[in-house]
């Protein structure tokens, strides 16, 4: 892969790429730094980057006001639950589309994607009424199912494009050996599909974690995730930059860390069939 380049060229590339990378990352860095400042330092003019008295008081204030762990747990449960449920429904569908394609396959796939175009605000009333009827307001189950449905088209598509890259001959060979449908999926397909599934899982976990419309509108206490947590810090009450930063950092840190650690897996499967 590595192409031979002159050291000067490499240095130039490095400087340029780092400059851009740091610029893109700066808002997050700034938020994290500000969360350790006092409110006064947070608005200091000129701004201070690193040399200030680091303090944890903002985190203490935020924790005092809201039970972070509960929001965090709800976020994990909802995002995780909807992703797993989505995979359970999507894997067979994507499998059959990829290996037993018919004329309708492409149309079904495109139709699935088009359901994502339903504007959430437009159907809030109906969904809210249904949730009342089923007694599912403020329950994680409702959110798990809804977020699963919202992300299902993306999951199916990602898996479909990934499965299609698996050569069909392997399955044929398996069938010759007398492998049934179950065995085919379990022993032949699954191992090959793991990277794709892992990447799908990660992407959908991130999407579900960051979903802010349904998670805010259908919850109150028991199911409220971090998107609801952040909604109570979003308007200024006097000086509030530092507190907002602390709350923001708490809301994004788990997913940021997860994302960084698993970025290889995420990137590997994140092609949506864009690469032939």
């Amino acid at each position: 892969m590595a192409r031979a380049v002159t050291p000067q060229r490499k240095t130039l590339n490095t400087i340029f790429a780092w400059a851009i990378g740091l610029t893109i990352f700066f808002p997050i860095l700034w938020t994290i730094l500000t969360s350790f400042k006092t409110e006064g330092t947070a608005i200091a003019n000129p701004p201070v980057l690193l040399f200030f008295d680091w303090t944890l008081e903002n985190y203490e204030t935020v924790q005092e006001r809201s039970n972070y762990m509960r929001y965090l747990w709800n976020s994990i449960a909802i995002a995780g639950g909807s992703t797993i449920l989505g995979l359970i429904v999507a894997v067979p569908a994507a499998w059959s589309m990829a290996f037993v394609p018919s004329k309708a396959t492409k149309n079904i796939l495109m139709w699935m994607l088009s359901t994502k175009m339903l504007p959430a605000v437009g159907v809030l009333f109906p969904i809210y009424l249904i949730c009342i009827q089923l007694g599912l307001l403020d329950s994680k189950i409702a959110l798990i199912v809804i977020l699963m449905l919202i992300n299902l088209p993306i999951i199916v598509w990602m898996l479909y494009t990934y499965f299609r890259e698996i050569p069909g001959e392997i399955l044929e060979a398996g069938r010759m050996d007398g492998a049934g449908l179950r065995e085919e999926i379990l022993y032949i397909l699954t191992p090959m599909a793991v990277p794709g599934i892992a990447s799908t899982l990660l992407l959908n976990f991130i999407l579900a974690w960051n979903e802010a419309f349904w998670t805010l509108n259908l919850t109150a206490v028991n199911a409220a995730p971090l998107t609801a947590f952040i909604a109570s810090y979003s308007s200024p009450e006097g000086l509030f930059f530092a507190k907002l930063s602390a709350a923001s950092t708490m809301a994004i840190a788990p997913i940021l860390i997860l994302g960084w650690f698993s970025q290889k897996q995420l990137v590997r499967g994140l092609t949506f069939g864009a690469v032939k």
Partner: protein
Amino acid sequence: MTTTIRALLGATALSAIGLSATAQDTTLTIATVNNGDMIRMQGLTQDFTNQNPGIALEWVTLEENVLRQRVTQDIATGGGQFDVLTIGTYEVPIWANQEWLVPLDDMPEDYNADDLLPAIRDALSVDGTLYAAPFYGESAMVMYRTDLAEEAGVTIPEEPTWTDIMAAAEAMTDRDNEIYGICLRGKAGWGENMAFLTAMANSYGGAWFNNDWEAQFESEPWQSAVSDYLMMMENYGPPGAANNGFNENLSLFQQGKCGMWIDATVAASFVTDPEDSTVADSVGYAVFPNKEGVDNHGNWLWAWSLAIPASSEQQDAAKAFISWATGQGYTELVASEEGWRSAPPGTRTSLYENAEYQEAAPFAEMTLNAMNAADTINQSVMETPYTGGQFVAIPEFAGIGTQVGQEMSAALAGQQSAEEALANAQALTTDEIEAAGY
């Protein structure tokens, strides 16, 4: 389909772990707004749970716009997610008329509803029945920096006219040092810039509608009110004023960047708080201005109040909580914990008769006068078919007010002229009000 069912069961098990059951008999879910007084209350609930060991409290604290959307959605569909709602004087009569709220006529003995300020009590009652208990109340007034006024050589009379205000704003403005003569709300919203502009138009002799429900934006009072407002903000206001609401202006004033600020009386206790405010020692107060010859000071009246939705299944516990949170005992609790100045203002006569409060809160008298003077029935010198002061008490107002607010905000941002903004406001209001069948 079995996979789905299995998955659902898995999901159920997953979420069951998350439910940490509380030992108490009753759990109240309280929806509230994330402003300072409410957050203070959250911190003091130990006192309530000590008195009522059987009741646990769950807080849903949200930013004002989100809160309003959530509780309106829930009450309009009968969702029943909350046991106590934090709502304002705008919502109470409308929701009470729909029988969505529980009447508060059988509050515990020590609640003492007769102690409530008459203006607030009226605003929260329908046909003489109280439907929400005020947590804190406010009118509007002028807050100004006495030091800057002195430096600039201007005096602000106790009952200033808009001409006085404009002159003072000009004298106090010092852009090089980031001192802006006047800070006013510019952020679009019926409860943000339109609260101020409606009160301002009232004080110019205007109103939203005449007796035939015809929008009045093209009348002379609105035109001069809006053009004066824009002139002041352009010449003496802070940058980015079109995005400033109550909170942003509070922050600016506390940082010492505003010469004057005309806004809710409740701000007085924040701008004089030595911990948060750099100008705590030099704040003066004056009545909400009026235009020469118009005997009207805007008639701003608001109270964040606690109400119980009819769908709540724990109405007795909810009443116990409301009576604790809005009773005299709570005021004393806050006073003992944080000092009298922080007591929630504007709800009870007894607070204003308290000598300790009067001493700790130099703004007490001005607040009380402003609140008593606010007339929500005759909010304008014009005859109007509606009630309300800085808002119009009809269900459609929230939607219309915000749209008109966006027109005004766009004018303030320089995207359109005052005439265009008013013409657009006139057109859209006429359209909406006709469609609503008035």
